[in-house]
């Protein structure tokens, strides 16, 4: 496999349960604050904790893009408005032209909430209310289409949906679009919002914790669902200085089970090894791993095995999902953003809510946060269907 050149990240934006924009997110991360709360999403009677973005209900999309109004695209818009991201994209748009900038967004449920609610209002003949705008709300492409219209971009675009690895996979696709010469820059991101299907669906699988999730804890009993939007502008080197770059990515499948990871983490390990090869790095070069770390018994055990097999048991690892919740299709981008903050501040976040690490886990799980010089970090994302993606980010010096 060829080693790829570092791909500069020239714009970052986040809206996640820790906070809106990078400064608020950093404050919560370093102070060890969680964005989780007891479930108060609509009328969902599920006993769990969630990472809800407050106020989306009162922020409709108006104007010429009003057709796209739905919870998921509201969250996308909120994300785009953070961290002067739209200005960064506009600058790139002027430099390269709109047709040279792609849009690749990960999502798992898009605007399905609007369809869920429409089903409550079926007519006597079973018909759905004509207020439902399937194409602009529920279809998975809706969010990518909304983002490219909002940013006035005209390059290649697609939504990626590989369950909880979706917005990690966008980095692989974006990198290839740039290396193929089709794009000079790509807006890569992830947007996933709360809906009834994920809350009741994960509950039906017995995967939701009744408390804030405790990844890697001996008494962990499931995940907490969150919602988030995040974006990065990836750009071919040269135009603008960046302090942060994508160094490598690895993609694999488990070939094991639809909703349970391969117990020895073999698929996860394959993705991590591939990311190292593509970045031209050795295991010892990775100084921190942001775990997929959902807080389910099976995920954390399998990931632990994969980490030990590929990186050994000395690299500091932690899960930030105790703060953000598992933002599903937005987890990859949200954790990429957190990795950017970690590199910027030479900071390894602890694993929130985790009191005592499961003694059967062998890797070096960081419970408490620590400041430590960092140059290269890895972020893991694994999804249903056994879809794995591992990313390596680094400081640009």
């Amino acid at each position, binding site marked *: 496999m060829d080693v790829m050149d570092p791909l500069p990240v020239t714009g970052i934006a986040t809206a996640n349960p820790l906070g809106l924009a990078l400064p608020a997110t950093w404050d919560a991360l370093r102070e060890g604050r969680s964005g989780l709360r007891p479930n108060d999403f609509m009328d969902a009677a599920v006993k769990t904790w969630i990472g809800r973005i407050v106020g989306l209900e009162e922020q409709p999309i108006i104007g010429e893009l009003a057709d796209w109004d739905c919870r998921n695209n509201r969250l996308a818009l909120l994300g785009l408005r953070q961290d002067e991201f739209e200005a960064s994209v506009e600058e790139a748009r002027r430099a390269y032209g709109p047709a040279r900038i792609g849009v690749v967004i990960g999502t798992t449920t898009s605007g399905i909430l609007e369809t869920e609610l429409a*089903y409550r209002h079926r007519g006597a003949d*079973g018909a759905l209310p004509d207020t439902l705008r399937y194409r602009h709300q529920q279809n998975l*492409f809706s969010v990518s289409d909304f983002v490219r219209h909002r940013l006035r971009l*005209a390059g290649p675009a*697609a939504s990626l949906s590989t369950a909880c690895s979706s917005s990690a996979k966008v980095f*692989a696709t974006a990198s290839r679009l740039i290396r193929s010469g*089709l794009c000079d820059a790509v807006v890569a991101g992830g947007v996933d919002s709360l809906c009834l299907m994920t809350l009741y669906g994960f509950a039906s699988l017995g995967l939701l914790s009744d408390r804030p999730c405790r990844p890697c804890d001996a008494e962990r009993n499931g995940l907490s669902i969150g919602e988030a939007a995040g974006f990065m502008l990836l750009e071919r080197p040269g135009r603008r200085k960046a302090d942060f770059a994508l160094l490598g990515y690895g993609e694999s499948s488990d070939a094991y089970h639809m909703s349970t990871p391969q117990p020895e983490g073999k698929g996860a390990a394959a993705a991590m090894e591939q990311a190292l090869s593509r970045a031209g790095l050795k295991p010892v070069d990775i100084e921190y791993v942001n775990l997929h770390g959902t807080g389910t018994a099976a995920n954390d055990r399998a990931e632990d095995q994969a980490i030990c097999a590929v990186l050994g048991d000395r690299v500091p690892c932690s899960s930030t999902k105790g703060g953000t919740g598992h933002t599903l299709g937005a987890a990859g981008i949200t954790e990429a953003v957190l990795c950017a903050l970690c590199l910027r501040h030479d900071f390894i976040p602890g694993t929130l809510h985790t009191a005592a690490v499961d003694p059967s886990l062998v890797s070096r799980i960081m419970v408490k946060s620590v400041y430590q010089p960092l140059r290269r970090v890895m972020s893991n994302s694994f999804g249903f*269907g056994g*879809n794995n993606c591992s990313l390596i980010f680094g400081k640009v010096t």
Partner: protein
Amino acid sequence: MELWVRAVGVLGPGLDGWTATRAILAGLEPYSARPTKKPIPDVLPATERRRSGEASRLAIAVAQEAVSASRIPSQELATVFASSDGDGDITHKICGSLAGTDRDVSPTLFHNSVYNAPAGYWSIATGSRSGSTSVCAYDLSFAAGLLEAAVQVTVERQPVMLIASDLPFPAPLHAARPVDQSFAVALLLAPHEIGTPLMRWDITLEAYRTPTAWPSGPGNSLRNNPAARCLPLLAALAGGGSPIVSLDYLDHSSLVVACEV
């Protein structure tokens, strides 16, 4: 972007495998619109075979056909799955349950509801740990999938199988998204002229041109199926269509495929 088509798999109304479909598209056999066969993939372990949904079964059937014809081991193939809408029947059932009083969502339906369910079942069926991506661009999902697959072939220099499929929507969702018929296609694409490729494709993104007309018989049956937008390419592969195929892409641009035997 230059690539070689190594093999094809196809299932649709009156389109039962590539050999039969090729004969129809080449004008050697008449077309008659019969309902798409419902394959039960024997490559899946019994539990997964029982749990798998229709989208996964259809995708696996066409993928299997392409892989057997290519003689490339499935473990060496990255995959790109493309669909506009996944499985609308699952969406319908889950939204129906959530609108009811007890709101019980079936665990099997829930894990089958992920867009990459066909990819998950395919990797279980074949034991392949290769990477897999699932893409959506509404009506343009086939073109977006072809672009993703071509970019992967070009940049990663590895064979990639593109599997595109769309299923009919049930009522009442059908009114909001009128997709009809079941259709799936698998195209096995390689970076080199190894073995005996069917055709060389040169793929470019260009300013808008009139899209290539669909072959009439299957084209009529499948006009409301986004994945069937590959039909002009299948006609070219069958030797019965235009050698320059233009597919609609975003913003009035076109994905143009120059085909060369």
